[in-house]
């Protein structure tokens, strides 16, 4: 029993949109970051599903790289959130808005 690849795409698209929704609605920097991670994982689902579909491993390997880069991104992001907390006494991303226009 195999699941048609379209369903994986739908799943990943749903996941992507969930992540996007989080990005747009969450003020907490950590939630923002998590939402981005969800979006990245949506891409991973696509990659792995299509890797299976096409019968080559390229997509799976790329998914590993994506995970690694996502981790690195989180590391940098946490660092930035840390200094954000120190400077603004909070991690609400809408607070730092001194630079505009």
């Amino acid at each position, binding site marked *: 029993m195999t699941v048609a690849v379209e369903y994986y795409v739908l799943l990943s698209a749903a996941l992507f949109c969930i992540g996007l929704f989080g990005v*747009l609605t*969450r003020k907490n920097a950590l939630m923002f970051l998590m939402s981005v991670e969800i979006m990245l994982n949506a891409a991973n689902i696509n990659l792995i599903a299509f890797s299976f579909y096409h019968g080559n491993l390229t997509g799976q390997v790329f998914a590993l790289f994506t995970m690694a880069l996502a981790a690195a991104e989180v590391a940098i992001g946490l660092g930035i959130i840390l200094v954000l907390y120190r400077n603004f006494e909070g991690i609400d991303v*809408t607070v730092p*808005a001194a*630079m*505009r*226009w």
Partner: protein
Amino acid sequence: MATAFELAPAIAALPLAAFVVVLLVGDSMPKKGAFAGIIATAGSLVLSLWALATVAGGEVYNQELYEWAAGEEIAFHFGILIDPLSALMLVIVSLVALLVHVFSLGYMNEEGETGLPRYYAELGLFTFSMLAFVYADNLLMAFMFFELVGLCSYLLIGFWFRTPSASSAAKKAFLVTRFGDYFFLIGVVGIAATFGTLSFAGESSFVVAAEEAISGGETLFGFGAETWVTILGLLVLGGVIGKSAQFPLHTWLPDAMEGPTTVSALIHAATMVAAGVYLVARMYGFYALSPTALAIIAFVGGFTALFAASMGVVKDDIKQVLAYSTISQYGYMMLGLGVGGYVAGVFHLMNHAFFKALLFLGAGAVIILMHHEQDMWKMGGLKDQAPVAYYTFLAGALALAGIVPFSGFWSKDEVLYDALILGLEEPIFLIAYAMGLIAVFFTGFYTFRMVFLTFHGEPRSEAARDPHPIGAAVKLPLIVLGVLAVVAGIVNLAPIAKLTGAEIVFLEHWLDGEYGAVEGLTYHEYHELMGHETSYIGSETLTMLLGAALSLGLAFAGAGLAWTLYNVPEPKEHTRRLGRAREVLGNNYYQDEYQVWLARDLTLPFSRTADRFDQSVIDGVVNGVSSVSLFGSGRMKRLQTGVVTNYAALLVLGFLALLVIFGINGGWFV
């Protein structure tokens, strides 16, 4: 042993050196720097003569010396071109410059003028510019020195800059010639852009390129090749008309008489004014490609010859008369060149250089005699007081009037002859010929009016009764030039050659490259390019005799009328009989007035209107646009709210907009 050509740069460099030296230490030099100038110009003369002899030996020199800017398409350089034409001109220029320097000893030094180092320095610079212009091997270099010549004449005309008239005359000369030079500059740029070269001679010259373009039937800048060549030629002609004081840009020249008379001699005989005509001769091959341009040259020349001669008739100031005669004579040269008489034009240029220098220096001598009085009505009877001045002046006058066998006759006659034979084939040119012919009468009249009023009759003023003596420095140049004015015609006795069959048209052979010439720059090649047909009344000899008789007759008629009217002890101002015509003539046909009117009453209001338009409409539009832009800017930057989630939202919205547009457009969702 260096050859003449290796030393060629020194021909121009010597006067330049004199300029530098006199400018720096002139005040402490003997005669305030006059000797430096004399030595330098003498050196130039010797070298020029040597170069002339070398050319006569069959060699020519066309050498690029220094490349000062090079691009992929075109390179600009300084170079020297010494061919029969430029060698001849070098001699003329350096000779006249030398004589003017010598004369200045008597005219300027002995009169105790101040500012002499400046004077001699400027003379040196002037000579340098002209010599460098003469042997320039490309049009851009020619243009640069052309401009320098204009600058020097500005400086020299305004030598007595403390008198308002002198400084305004200087400004006028500068501005009017500059007006023409704009067109020249555009022409230079146009030629460079079209042909990618500015050289006068050689395989890579713009003349050759233009010839190929025409024969190849190319289209240049949207025009046929010949039309474009005509346009370029006419643009360059703008500079010529300004410099050579041709109608309608001649108005500066009479005013330029405000300068020292020596300067007038130099300007009129050999440098500034000659530069224009020389330029036409220099790039004659280019004009030869365009019959239209040549015809325009011919008509401008013929008209100017008549027009200026008619004004010369009513002038009272001796220098003014000469000034208008200069304009008129350059008109002849243009006429000659315009009708294909390359030799005739150059021949007249040479003769004119000698006799006009003579006449101006003679006038200078008269002015010395008259204690700086220039009104001819206050002169009279100087014949006996200053015989040297009188006889040399008379020789010059006879040459100017074109009385056989003086030099002017031969060249003027040849100009008219060339116009006639062309006119017989193409009748339109007969009009130009007729104008030239009538001008002969006027020339004879005003010349001898001047001679008689100045030298004959009874002295009409205290100064004329007790003239100031003139020295050897004055007499020597007069004598040299007097001799030349008498005999210079020998070099091209075309009528006699035609009658007798003797090979005595030396100048024609010279310019035709019999002794050596740069390929493509010879008389017969020009002739082939033009392809003018000519025809004769009866035979060639008959036509020639008829023409000569006609012009000679008119010259005698003019001179005779002057004789009857003015060669009397107490001449009267017969000009009153001219009635209203006198007023028109006396006011120079209102040329100045209409040009001032053009400038003040037409151009100025137009400019004001344009300015108002600019300030109200254009600025309004610009200001409107900028305030709209700035307003737009104010709105646009509000997009950047500073809140990062808004950015994310806008980013996603922007992306979705793209997705919807392209998705629906590309049918991705079906």
